[in-house]
C-alpha cells in the first residue's frame, strides 16, 4: 500500500503556495504553506496507492496549467485555484482533503483551536452514564406500532 517513490517529484514549492491560499494565517499560526507541511502531505498521500495516484495527478495537472503560479499575486492565485476546482473537482477534492488532514494534525493548530490532538484510542473519552429519567415523557406514550 505504501510507496513514496512515485510522489518524490511532487513540486513542494508549488504545493506550499497552494496551501497558503487554501488555509490562510490566523492568530499566531502562519498560513499552511509556511508551516512546513508539504513533506508530510507527500508522505501521507503515499499510504494508499489509489489516493497517491489521484493526488499526484492533481499536482501534475495543476502545474501543467499553472506553470507561473508561484509568481502570481494572491488574488490571481485564488482565481487559478478556483478555476482548477471548477474544471477538475475530483482532483481538487483530493488536494483539499489531504491538505486539511495534515493541517489539522499539527500541534500548533491543535493549540489554537483547543483540540487535544490525541488519537481516538486507546484513551477514548469520558461520558456521563445512562440516565433513565430522560425517557419520562416517551414512557407515557401508548404503544403505536402496527399490529398484524
Amino acid at each position, binding site marked *: *500500500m505504501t510507496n513514496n517513490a512515485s510522489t518524490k517529484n511532487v513540486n513542494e514549492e508549488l504545493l506550499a503556495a497552494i496551501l497558503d*491560499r*487554501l*488555509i*490562510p494565517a*490566523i492568530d499566531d499560526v502562519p498560513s499552511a504553506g509556511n508551516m512546513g507541511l508539504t513533506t508530510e502531505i507527500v508522505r*501521507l498521500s503515499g*499510504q*494508499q*496507492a*489509489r*489516493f497517491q495516484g489521484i493526488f499526484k495527478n492533481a499536482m501534475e495537472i495543476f502545474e501543467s496549467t499553472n506553470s507561473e503560479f508561484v509568481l502570481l499575486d494572491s488574488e490571481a492565485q*485564488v482565481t487559478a*485555484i478556483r478555476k482548477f476546482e471548477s474544471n477538475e473537482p475530483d482532483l481538487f*477534492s483530493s488536494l*483539499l*482533503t*489531504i491538505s*486539511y*488532514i495534515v*493541517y*489539522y*494534525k499539527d500541534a500548533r*493548530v491543535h493549540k489554537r*483551536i483547543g*483540540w487535544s490532538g490525541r*488519537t*481516538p*484510542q*486507546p*484513551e*477514548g*473519552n*469520558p*461520558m*456521563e*452514564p*445512562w*440516565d*433513565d429519567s*430522560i*425517557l419520562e*415523557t*416517551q*414512557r407515557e*406514550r*401508548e*404503544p*403505536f*406500532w*402496527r*399490529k*398484524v
Partner: protein
Amino acid sequence: MTIRNESSNETVDIVVIGAGASGGAATAWLAESGFKVKCLEQGYWQDSSKYASASEDYEFEMLTNWAPDPNVRQRAEDYPVNDSNSPVTPVMFNGVGGSTILWTAHTPRFHPSDFRVKTLDGVADDWPISYDELEEFYDLNDEVMGCSGINGDPANPPRSPRQMPPLPIGNDGKKLISGFEKLGWHWWPSDSYINSQRYGEGRDACNFCGHNHMGCYQRAKSSTDITYWPRALRSGATIETGARVRRIIIDDSGRATGADYIDSKGNEQHQKARAVIMAANGIGTPRLLLNSTSDSYPTGLANSSGLVGKNLMFHPFAMISGTFPEKMDTWQGPLGNIGLSQEFYETDKRRGFVRGYTYQFQRSLGPAWIANGGFRNPVPWGEGHHEELRKRLGSVMAMAVIGEDLPEEHNMVDLDPELTDSDGIPAPRLNYTLSKNSRDQLDHAIENAKKALKAAGAEDIFVDPMMRQSGWHLMGTARMGNDPEKSVVDKWGQSHDVDNLFVIDGSVFVTGAAVNPTPTIQALALRTADYIVEHRQDLKG
C-alpha cells in the same frame, strides 16, 4: 500459479461462503450441533490492536485503507463493483467478521408490519414468515452479540430484556432529542451491539472514542470475529482465509457438491461438501450464483425464477445536519448510536407514499473530519475557513433517514462483461434507480428533520438529499418465498432449485423495512441453521 488441489480437502458436511454477520452465526450454530463445517472467506482475520483509531494517521486511513467502499479501499481481498449506474455506492468489508468490522452496530429490529406489506399496504410481497416466527432467533442473536438498550419503546412490540443498559446519550444527544420532545415526536435510545459494560469473551465496555466505524480497538463493538467465531472454532468448525470462491459446483443430479476457490497463495482449490451455504452479502451472493453456470443451470445457479440478482434494495440515506450554537464535544461517543425516531415508520397514506422511515441520530467527529465535510460540504477554503471551522467543530449533529426501499426487478446486480477481480472472476455490476415512493419518503423525512433540528435549536441546516456512499444494506437479490416462480429460496433459505444449497445473507429479504438489517439477517441465518439441524441430518457425514 494455477494448481488445482483436491487431495488435501476432505468432504465436509457444509461449506459456508463468507465469514461475516450471517456466516459466523450459522457456522457457530451448526458446528455446535455436530456438523462438520468449513468456511471460505476471501478476507483475513483482523487484529483489533492494529485498528486505525490508534494510529496518528487515522483521519487519512478512514478515507482510504479503512474506507467502507471497496472501490475506494481497494485491498487485495476486495473485489471491484461497477457502480456507475447507481446513485448509491456499495459499502462492505471483506474479512472474518465481514461488514460487522466497520458497521455502526445500530441494531433495531423489523416491526411485525414489515413482514406483511402486501396485506397491509398492497405493495411488494408479504414475507413467508412472521415477526413472531423470528423473535426467538432475534433473542438468541442478541445474547451472543450483546445488545445495549432498554425496554418500553412504544414504537415496537414488547420484547425480552437487553443484555446491557443503553449507551449514554451525551449532551449532544440530549440536545438533538430536545427537538423531538418539543414536537411530541417519538424517540428512543438506540439498540446497539456495543457494550455499555463488559460483556462477552474478553470484550470491554465502550470507551466512547467515536471511531468504531474503523473497527473497534476496544472490542466493545460486536463483530462476529469476536462473538460467533470463537464459539464456532471451539466446536470444530474451520475457516480458510484468503480463499476467494470462483463458483459453486453441481453434479449431474443437480445437487451442490462444493466450491472451487483460489487460495491465499493463488492455487486453484476445490472444497467438497454435502451442502453449501451462501453468506457473501446481497451483492457477493448473487455474483457468485450468476458465476456458477453449468449445463444444468445456464443462467446461473438457483436461478430458474430468473430472480437471482433482481430486486436489489438499499436503504437510500438522506442526511440532514444542523450546526448548533453550543459546543457539545460531539466526537465523544459512538458516531451513530444515540437514538432513533420511528414517529413516521408505519404507513399513513395521507403522506402521499406507503411505508415509512426511521431517523438514526448521528454525532460528528474531529477537526479534519469536520473540515472535509463529514455529513455536509467541506468547510470552504481561503478567507472564512477558520470562522466556519470554529462554528462547526463540536456543534454539528445529524439525522440519517433510513427509508423503506421497496423491491423492483429492474434494480439489480448482474455480472459486468469486462470488469473482473484480481483473480479474473467477473465482477458485479449494479443497476439501480430510486423509486418515486422512496424519493417521496426521503423528501417527507427531510422536511420533518428540519423541523426537529430547528426545534432543538440548530441554526444552520444542511441537507444531503441522498448520500452516495450509503449502500450498507444490501438486500433482496435472492429473495425468499413460497412460490418457486417468484422467489429464489424458500422460507428456510433453501434454494427452490437445489435442495442442498442455502442462502442466509441479506439477499433473502423480501422487503427491506426501514431499519438497519443486520439483526434480522443474523436471526434468519440462525433460523436456517436451526432448520438444517432439525430437518437435514441427511447432510451429516
